[in-house]
């Protein structure tokens, strides 16, 4: 197994050992693969996800059977929703005892079925090399996603002659890469007739490793861009063609642009309920051109005028080859004027720090190639709405699942994948408490992740829902009793500071950036701040 992983180019594993995975760990100690011990299996999955998103190859996590495997489920579901390639290996009880409800037995391939692209329950040790090869292929190609390999402990222990396959051949799995030539021509014709074309970009751009091609694409076509939450950072946020994030928590400029567009390109975006509020409003007038590697996404949530199935990078290349040039400045000017007219509330606060201004200042102060991991809650929306991303920077968050406690582990994985890049995890005081045990992982393995915790003593996003939709009946959103994050950090041997004013915040940002090794900055924020 280890040799198969090494042949697949695995250099890091995020994991947590246990009885049924002990044989693998026994051999792992002789391997060049670096094992990073997390403090909870869920975070092994998130770290593998963060690793995958930055390295561009599947992240690997290893857990034991039963609770180890079920703890991983949330991370698998998170990766599945956001199309992140992960290969997860779980130990399983002795294959002869399967189905007898023995100690730490859980039907994990069954439980993970809705959240995995594919899964294997290995019964024959001779099949392991082929299965591992296939798992990496399935996870990384087509629409990426998590693949689970469940290996009974006796299968791990049995010796078998090692024969690693050269290639993968799966009859029922041949993702389309190139776009259909006829459809590409239709796209060009439609674009030529369009007055108000718009591109909505999603996380698929990163899956296709197509950021550079995308920039070339939008500049060649001269078409303005909006992005989904997962698409943030596909173009630098200051790019003249970029009009902001769409959706429930997006910018009104971007949402208005969608409803005024006559042709809408969707590229690697699945048009989720949070991204397009009123699909009916869009489809009546707008011709949708949907470019996606997953044919099942096309037409699922919006009626599509031209479907183009394939790899976004390949298809954009095919379109660019025709050298379409679109002369129009009116539409772009119109959107730009509206974008510039928008008031951003970066004013200082009487109580606490303005979180939007903080995010903006923080991202401006970071090196261009920074990796910014946003957790879930109001902090995610403050981050998404105000982060400034320059070329080479990345914004990582959980879009589909909205999994609290994602950021620190994902940032750890991302940092491991790109050691030189400045990596920051931004959480709230709620999500921090779902992941603060991972501070130990950072310390133990010397992973230099900076952490920001927005402290308002509330589960702010739920509080906001209660304020807006339940007559401000605040129920179970007060998290009084929470520890001081800086004291927690210090208990783990991580330095940190708390800031409560704009002035202190600027100083705090400077300290955070200058500090060698992990650092935690707690930012006091009023509990009545709104997300948008």
């Amino acid at each position, binding site marked *: 197994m280890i040799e198969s992983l090494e042949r697949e180019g695995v250099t890091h594993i995020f994991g947590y050992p246990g009885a049924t995975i002990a044989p693998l760990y026994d051999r792992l100690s002789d391997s060049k693969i670096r094992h990073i011990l997390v403090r909870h299996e869920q975070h092994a999955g998130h770290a593998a996800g963060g690793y995958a998103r930055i390295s561009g190859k599947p992240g690997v996590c290893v857990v034991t059977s039963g609770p180890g495997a079920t703890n991983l489920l949330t991370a698998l579901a998170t990766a599945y929703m956001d199309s992140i390639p992960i290969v997860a290996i779980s130990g399983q009880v002795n294959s002869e005892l399967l189905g007898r409800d023995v100690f730490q037995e859980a039907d994990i391939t069954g439980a993970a079925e809705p959240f995995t692209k594919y899964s294997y*329950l290995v019964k024959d040790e001779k099949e392991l090399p082929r299965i591992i090869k296939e798992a990496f292929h399935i996870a990384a190609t087509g629409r990426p996603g998590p693949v689970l390999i469940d290996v009974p402990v006796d299968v791990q222990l049995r010796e078998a002659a090692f024969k690693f396959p050269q290639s993968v051949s799966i009859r029922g799995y041949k993702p389309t890469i190139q776009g259909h030539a006829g459809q590409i021509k239709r796209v060009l014709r439609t674009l030529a007739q369009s007055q108000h074309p718009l591109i909505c970009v999603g996380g698929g751009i990163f899956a296709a490793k197509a950021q550079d091609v995308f920039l070339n694409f939008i500049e060649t076509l001269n078409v303005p861009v909006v992005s989904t939450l997962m698409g943030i950072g596909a173009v630098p946020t200051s790019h003249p063609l970029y009009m902001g994030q769409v959706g429930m928590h997006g910018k009104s400029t971007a949402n208005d642009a969608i409803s005024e567009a006559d042709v809408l390109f969707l590229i690697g975006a699945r048009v989720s309920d949070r991204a397009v509020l009123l699909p009916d409003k869009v489809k009546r007038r707008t011709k949708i051109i949907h470019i996606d590697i997953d044919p099942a996404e096309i*037409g699922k949530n919006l009626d599509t005028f031209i479907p183009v199935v394939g790899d976004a990078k390949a298809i954009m290349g095919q379109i660019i080859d025709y050298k379409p040039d679109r002369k129009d400045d009116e539409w772009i000017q119109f959107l730009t004027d509206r974008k510039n007219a928008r008031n951003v509330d970066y004013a200082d606060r009487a109580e606490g720090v303005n979180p939007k201004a903080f995010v903006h200042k923080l991202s401006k102060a970071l090196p261009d190639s920074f990796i910014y991991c946003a957790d879930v809650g109001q902090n995610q929306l403050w981050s998404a709405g105000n982060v400034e991303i320059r070329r080479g920077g990345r914004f990582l968050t959980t879009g589909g699942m909205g999994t609290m406690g994602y950021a620190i582990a994902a940032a750890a994985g991302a940092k491991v994948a790109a050691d030189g890049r400045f990596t920051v995890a931004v959480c709230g005081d709620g999500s921090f408490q779902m992941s603060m045990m991972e501070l130990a992982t950072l310390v133990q393995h010397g992973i230099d992740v900076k952490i920001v915790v927005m402290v308002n003593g509330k589960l702010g996003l739920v509080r906001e829902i209660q304020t807006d939709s339940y007559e401000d009946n605040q129920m179970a959103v007060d998290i009084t009793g929470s520890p001081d994050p800086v004291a927690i950090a210090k208990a783990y041997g991580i330095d940190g500071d708390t800031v409560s004013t704009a002035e202190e915040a600027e100083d705090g940002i400077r300290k955070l950036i200058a500090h060698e090794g992990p650092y935690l900055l707690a930012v006091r924020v009023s509990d009545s701040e709104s997300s948008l």
Partner: protein
Amino acid sequence: MKHTIAVLVENKAGVLSRISGLFARRGFNIDSLAVGPTDDPHISRITIIVDGDDYMAEQVTKQLNKLIDVLKVRNLADHEITRRELALVKVKVDESKRGEIVDIAKIMNCEIVDISHTTLMIEFDDRPERVDLLIDLLSKYTILEMARTGTIALQKGHESV
């Protein structure tokens, strides 16, 4: 509207649970599902009858195609296929009713495959609507038990999935 969807899948453990799980998760309504081997021992053929509009049929087809163990999916139009179902029906009989039931069986071209002092077992394979008709006719008597396979279907002529 009913759609007949033929699916060729790898004959592997867990395939059926992946497919039935998909239908449950996505809220697709299955009227019937029939699975059996094909001439290739590695491939099974599943015939699924789903009830829904064209959007749903398209989603079913696309989501099935996404499954790695699925080799081919085809939504078969009613006019291009021959459909069959098999039913076994056990009816309670007494001397006075036996003649009537045997008559029904003869007229419908069924076979009587088991007989006892108090029962008759009727075997019938035909188009699903004919099977419905037989069951309707027999429902006048007491049906003790019945088993019915799902619909299977093949395209007429040279076409194949």
